[in-house]
């Protein structure tokens, strides 16, 4: 414990002229279960793909388990990844997938995955294309866990599941984490999905400015300012207005304040909660789109 499993610095990904992820600075301690929260389109999938080496960064850098993400066996063998679409080979059955895992990984726990799928009553001989969505997600999770990874990256694993399957999936995950030695990062657009199992939160939101940070600094850097309408423009350097609400006499501003910047005087300060902050970024994206 105390070591860092993931550390990113100014990490960014650009597709053409569009930045899908920008200036992402997160750190994930080893052994934690982190929730990666943010609205759709904020860059959650992009970030996870960068971390597992499926795509390459356009800016900044990252260290995952102390290494730069790469297409190398030594790097890949320590990481389990589950993509949003839960891809599996539809015509192959679970037993084939287990064999695949055994052939494509150095340390693959065949006993573990067989026992696990048996406990979950998942038929090994049926093509996975004919399993239910929940069963497929369980097969995919079991495959990722059987790799015995040190880090598990899950992209919206419960989004497509019904409440019961969601519960089962998260229980399976909690159980795996309890066995120790595993760091988990999973994304969702709903914090409520992951609140129960996570002990660490990373927030992503994209507007004109992007937010990609751990929750503590996010909460620390954002303030809700209430003050007279006229003062809205004179906030000084180091203060970025994310969202502005105008009433007849006063403005309510959600601002991001850089470290070491003194708060402008004459404003009433409040602490926003994480949902208010995310909504502010989303509102900014919408306004940006209308211009």
């Amino acid at each position: 414990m105390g070591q860092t499993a993931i550390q990113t610095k100014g990490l960014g990904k650009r597709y053409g002229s569009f930045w899908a992820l920008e200036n992402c600075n997160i750190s994930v301690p080893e052994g934690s279960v982190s929730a990666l929260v943010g609205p759709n389109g904020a860059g959650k999938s992009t970030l996870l793909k960068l971390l597992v080496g499926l795509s390459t960064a356009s800016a900044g850098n990252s260290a995952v388990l102390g290494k730069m993400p790469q297409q190398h066996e030594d790097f890949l063998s320590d990481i389990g990844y589950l993509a949003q679409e839960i891809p599996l080979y539809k015509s192959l059955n679970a037993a084939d997938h287990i064999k695949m895992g055994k052939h494509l990984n150095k340390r693959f726990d065949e006993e573990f995955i067989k026992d696990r799928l048996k406990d979950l009553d998942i038929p090994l001989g049926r093509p996975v294309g004919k399993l239910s969505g929940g069963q497929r997600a369980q097969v995919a999770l079991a495959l990722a866990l059987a790799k015995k990874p040190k880090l598990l990256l899950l992209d919206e694993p419960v989004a497509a599941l019904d409440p019961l399957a969601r519960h089962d999936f998260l229980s399976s995950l909690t159980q795996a984490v309890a066995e120790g030695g595993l760091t988990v990062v999973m994304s969702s657009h709903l914090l409520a999905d992951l609140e129960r199992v996570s002990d660490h939160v990373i927030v992503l939101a994209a507007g004109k400015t992007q937010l990609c940070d751990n929750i503590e600094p996010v909460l620390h850097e954002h303030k809700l300012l209430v003050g007279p309408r006229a003062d809205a423009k004179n906030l000084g350097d180091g203060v970025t207005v994310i969202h502005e609400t105008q009433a007849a006499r006063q403005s309510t501003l959600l601002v991001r304040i850089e470290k070491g910047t003194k708060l402008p005087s004459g404003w009433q300060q409040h602490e926003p909660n994480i949902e208010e902050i995310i909504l502010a970024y989303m509102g900014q994206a919408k306004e940006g789109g209308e211009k």
Partner: protein
Amino acid sequence: MNWFVWRQHRKQFLMLGILLAIFAALIVPTGNHFWHTYQQALTTCRQNPATPSCSNLPDNLFQTHTDQILFNLVPVAILFLPAILGMFWGAPLLSKEYTEGTNSLAWTQSVSRRKWLTAKLIWILAATVVVVGAFAALNTWWAKTPNALLYNRFNYLFFASQGIVPVAYGLFAVAFGILFGAWFRKIMVAVGVTLGLFIVMVMIVVPNFVRPHYMTPITISAPLGPAFRDNIPGRAWVLTRDIKDKNGRVIGDIFPAAPHECQQIIQQNQINTGGGIQVKATPSGADPIDDCLNKAGFHQVATYQPSYRYWDFQRIEVGIYLGLTALAVGAAYWLVLKRDA
């Protein structure tokens, strides 16, 4: 990785094996039958040269409907086999992984993308060599009868369906199918582009515009007359046959280009039969029109590739397609390794 590639493609391997068995079951008995019939006809003609059919065996042997269908269909099937492998084997190989997202499953196991792609390529390309090689070998053996009868292995369909070039076409089509799959990431687009490239390259551009120039053709020049035909060796691939004037210009229509006295001779000696124009027979066998035109400096020129160059041509064409295959494989590596999942 080897087990996994085998597991993913074993159905296709099995299906191609069955197809090959069916093809062999068709080819071996008919090939034997054709060859024996042909040999019998040759023996008959040696003993009895006066037999009417002996003057023109190609037009008298194997004229039944079934025989004609076989003679045409078998080489066409071998010609298209590489395209079919390219479309149904090469093109989906990577595009199916991309469209179903399974590439991100495969690429996050503990195998580098390079090893993953190498295993797939080795299996699929090796299987292509074996499958197309077997089909082409069977066809080459089977085609000895039509080859002997029609006397020209440079014939477009014969050349492309026999010897070693079908294997090279197979590698070319499959490798570009794989490349287009990685490039467009959509199965149908990759299939369509693969077929398009095959038709353009293998069926249009190379045979018409590239193959004739593999080696400098032999040029012969002779006076007008029936003997000219005998100056071109049998089984040669004749590229051009022209009438030229004394300045070496190619003459399309001889009559307006001929001098006045020759025009008169032409008019005197031609009979319009209604169906076409014929030259009156002369008792001596000499042709007064040819004599006049030869004196005026007209002559015939032909260029051809002799039959002994057949295997050189096969080797050169194989070299070209292997080079293109290598390009496609290199580009596919680049796309898989450098592009994001």
